[in-house]
């Protein structure tokens, strides 16, 4: 397959132009690939460069939730065994702000926790026990996300301290209760805080995003950004 004609390097040969009209360009084959080929291509324009430490710090927020769930489970366990007095559960808490814009997932998770508490409550000896346990579970599951969010906003350092102490406390309680569960919980926490961030950063190497003049124009987002800018300028 002979693609390259021996080209006459005389200065009279016209420059190759990236145009479709005018028929075959004199001195060039139709399959001529100019140096400007793919010069409009942009790779990985929207890919965020991630830092391992930052990702690990973010994953600490996720690890709070398994801890809270385990803690509530522990409380249920102690109540069932009557090691915990029901009146101590009736702690008075002030709601730090109402729940705004509930989403479907938050409804589902709340319902699941209620159902779980009901199952536990069915094993309890008295009505007061049931009431205490239900109230405690509801309060914890409802307010835990809000509490953690407020702490995070207030101070990132405090948030980290709170998370680590929560993890330590949970691990300590579980250790006294059941060795196997302790190992499982420890494994889960290590997986979430260390293994997952590392995995995410390794997979980022395979990201291959291609953009160029062949992309469909995205003018709607351009207009929306413009409108947002105008609105914020007006206020």
């Amino acid at each position: 397959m002979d693609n390259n004609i021996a080209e006459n390097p005389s200065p009279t040969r016209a420059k190759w132009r990236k145009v479709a009209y005018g028929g075959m360009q004199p001195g060039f084959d139709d399959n001529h690939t100019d140096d400007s080929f793919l010069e409009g291509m942009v790779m990985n324009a929207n890919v965020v460069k991630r830092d391992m430490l930052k990702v690990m710090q973010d994953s600490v927020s996720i690890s709070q939730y398994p801890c809270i769930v385990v803690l509530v489970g522990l409380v249920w366990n102690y109540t069932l065994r009557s090691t915990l007095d029901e009146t101590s559960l009736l702690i008075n808490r002030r709601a730090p702000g109402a729940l705004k814009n509930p989403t479907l997932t938050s409804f589902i998770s709340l319902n699941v926790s209620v159902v779980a508490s009901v199952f536990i409550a069915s094993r309890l000896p008295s009505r007061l026990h049931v009431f205490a346990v239900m109230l405690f579970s509801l309060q914890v599951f409802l307010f835990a996300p809000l509490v953690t969010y407020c702490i995070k906003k207030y101070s990132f350092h405090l948030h980290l301290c709170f998370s680590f102490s929560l993890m330590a406390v949970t691990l300590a309680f579980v250790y006294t209760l059941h060795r196997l569960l302790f190992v499982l919980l420890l494994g889960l926490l290590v997986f979430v805080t260390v293994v997952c961030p590392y995995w995410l950063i390794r997979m980022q190497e395979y990201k291959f995003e291609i953009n160029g003049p062949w992309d469909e124009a995205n003018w709607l987002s351009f207009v929306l950004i413009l409108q947002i800018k105008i609105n914020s300028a007006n206020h």
Partner: protein
Amino acid sequence: MGDSKRHRILMVSDFFYPNFGGVENHIYLLSQCLLKLGHKVVVMTHAYGNRSGVRYMTGGLKVYYVPWKPFLLQNTLPTFYGTLPIIRTILIREQISLVHGHQAFSTLCHEALMHARTMGYKVVFTDHSLYGFADVGSIHMNKVLQFTLADVSQAICVSHTSKENTVLRSGLPPEKVYVIPNAVDTAMFKPAAERPSGNEITIVVISRLVYRKGADLLVEVIPEVCRMYPNVRFIVGGDGPKRVRLEEMREKHSLQDRVEMLGAVPHAQVRSVLISGHIFLNSSLTEAFCIAILEAASCGLLTVSTRVGGVPEVLPDDMIVLAEPDPTDMVQAIKKAISILPMIDPQDMHNRMKKLYDWHDVAKRTEIVYDRALKCSNQSLLERLSRYLACGAWAGKLFCLVMIIDFLLWRLLQLWKPAEDIEVVPDIVLSLDEDRGMSQDFQAFNEDHSLR
């Protein structure tokens, strides 16, 4: 058959007459020009409604309407090996030397190219559209394209941007891809004898009213232009899901007497709609090559278009005003177009178009590609399999398996229905009328359509 350069080509695509569109017209007009150059051309497509079997079109163009019904967006159901027997029969009957497939979105094309390669024929593929990389549909289509083009002899793209896009999607070496643009039938798209008179400026839009063709941009642009220029009116031809939005826009701004909505315009009437205007507006969000712009320029209209895809390559800078695909920029471009309109001479533009685009030139350049394709060496199955293996860790092995099964099925078919038993079609050469121009072919094409 003394002329060794006489090719016997089978064009394959899901998209052909009686459908009208860019790909359909391209295949038809290219085939007609190749017939005039002395080659033999046969077209294969799927059945359209009752139109099934063998038909002959103008110039002796034979079309096989294979009795497979389309199942999604004009595409035949992909059965992988179901089309092998019929394709083999057609290739042997017509003594084909080369198979030319069109359009990446056509399942029939991919299957035909696969079987043709298994049977040892040389294969050329033409890509007519641009595709992305990020959404699920595109990812799968690109993988299929990678499979088909792993073993293609040559490929053709309709613009340089399209070549870049195809090379990235399929992993083909760029030297294998030829850029041969579409053309326009200048004998049919002639400007009006006299320009529409009066001080009114008419802007024509003819496109499918879908998101991809920028119908939403039109909704923003038209009221603004009508507000700025009281003597401008719009003619909008075409239909689609976004038509409702345009009607609403008309109602909201009370533009009923300034914006005329024609609905779907049959291909035979496109010219008469175009010559009633001064400016042609194209608002597509993506376009590999825009034939509508060529038709408008051939009719002497000044074009205003979005700068997307291959559009900047299509016309010289003095025949088109380009704008970024957002409403403000487009309104500015229309303003500029209106200001340079007095300097435009439609007849002069038409004469220039005759020199810039010609289907006969396209056919000659395609002939060169065919010559190169036939010079490619024959490869054994094992050599070809190594190319498929390079397509990916899992995909490569899957593709190899598919090709091996295809090869075995072909051998089985050779035993069951030997090639000697298939009757070869004798060559019937129609006396070619040298004076007959392309326009008469096209007219016959349109008359065929109106008779249905």
